[in-house]
């Protein structure tokens, strides 16, 4: 059992803007009433995403692609697109590497 504090191997950026991501089977992204916080429950993993990560994860719906997610966040937070992409892409890549998300 590990929690979010583990350091992950980073294989470098590989996901493309056109990638459509979804949660891997048997990964649960849900709101926990005890902590009043969103949690990710996965095999051998328990992640406690911060507010920013939650905003990103809530846009993972198996339909919109990574570009669309970045556009949405850039517009919502009135922040330059490349700044948003700089946060979003490494996080999503990391979660793909951990098999929490899949293409």
């Amino acid at each position, binding site marked *: *059992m590990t929690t979010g504090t583990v350091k992950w*191997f980073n294989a470098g950026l590989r996901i493309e803007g056109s990638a459509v991501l979804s949660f891997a089977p*048997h990964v649960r992204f849900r709101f926990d009433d*005890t902590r009043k916080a969103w949690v990710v*429950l996965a095999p*051998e993993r*328990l992640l406690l995403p911060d507010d920013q990560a939650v905003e990103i994860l809530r846009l993972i719906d198996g339909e919109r692609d990574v570009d669309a997610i970045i556009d949405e966040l850039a517009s919502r937070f009135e922040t330059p697109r490349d700044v948003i992409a700089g946060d979003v892409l490494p996080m999503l890549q990391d979660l793909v590497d*951990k*098999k929490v998300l899949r293409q």
Partner: protein
Amino acid sequence: MTALTGVSVEPPLALLAELTHRCPLRCPYCSNPLELSRASAELDTATWRRVFAEAAELGVLQVHFSGGEPLVRRDLAELVAHATKFGLYVNLITSGIGLNADRLGRFVEAGLEHVQLSLQDAEPGSGDRIAGLAGAQQAKRQAAALVRAAGLPLTVNAVVHRQNLERLEAIIELAVQLGADRLEVAHVQYYGWALSNRAALLPSRDQLDVATATVEAARAQLAGRLVIDYVVPDYYAHRPKACMGGWGRRFLNVTPLGKVLPCHAAETLPGLRFPTVAEASLSDIWYYSPAFAHFRGTAWMAEPCRSCERREIDWGGCRCQAFALTGNAARTDPACSLSSDHLLLAVARHEAAGPAPDFVYRQHSAAPPRVADPAL
């Protein structure tokens, strides 16, 4: 919430449910205590159901069904169903011995999310010898295939030591072949049975360095296919591990007899009385029991921990290791190079250079049967 000692206490994240100590395997590094409990004394279905309800209420998110071998419990499917009903994410930690398609189907129906399968070696003869059971390796291959066919994620847990490390590459290949999503390469942690077998298990520094390089190379090569988690042996460390993320901070453990512990080895510590699930709710035990409060936070620490800048990073290391090696659970973990007991590890490392003695396989003690403890 603030518990007894004024230390702020968060709800636990995960529960290790040790359903039984019974197991068809006899691994010489088993994490169960030297004194194994018997089937007749195990918590029944209804009590476990209540434990899961209390755990969910307390804020536990994941429950790991462990043992012994959980598959020996005939009510396992029912237990999975009870745990998932309360919203818990259920993981089955198993040797694979005794798994069949019918039972697995019932576990999936009950909401099982994930299986962690143990692997003793890549080579069947050695695997069976370490497990202490002929045919174990073949049964594991079948179990892995069943898990994949059922569509469940599979983690292979390979415990590594001086007698199988030379085949680490083959172990990694086998994990890929078995269809694992994740491989945990876990160096033996030296408590209980493993401590009794330390000279037969502890690798040399060279073996460890080769293993670490092998894992790093495999991670690069298998990125996207196999996630590899690596648990390093603290006998070669400079700083101790943050055992369980700190005493009573993240995890709790319920033994087959219903004792509630901060970790599976805590019962070895003298002077602490761990309540059972029959005596109090998990919440009362987590927040208010003196045993959970005892080593929580930093107030219990002596030097060099007390003034150490890492005291809230590694939480003084492991209490069970401190006790096992120094006889005093409140001392700094000898794995820390700042500990005055750090040389004790050099003695063990010296043993690793000598010939490996025979395994002492896990077994029930020869003690005569006793009348069940009425407190349970």
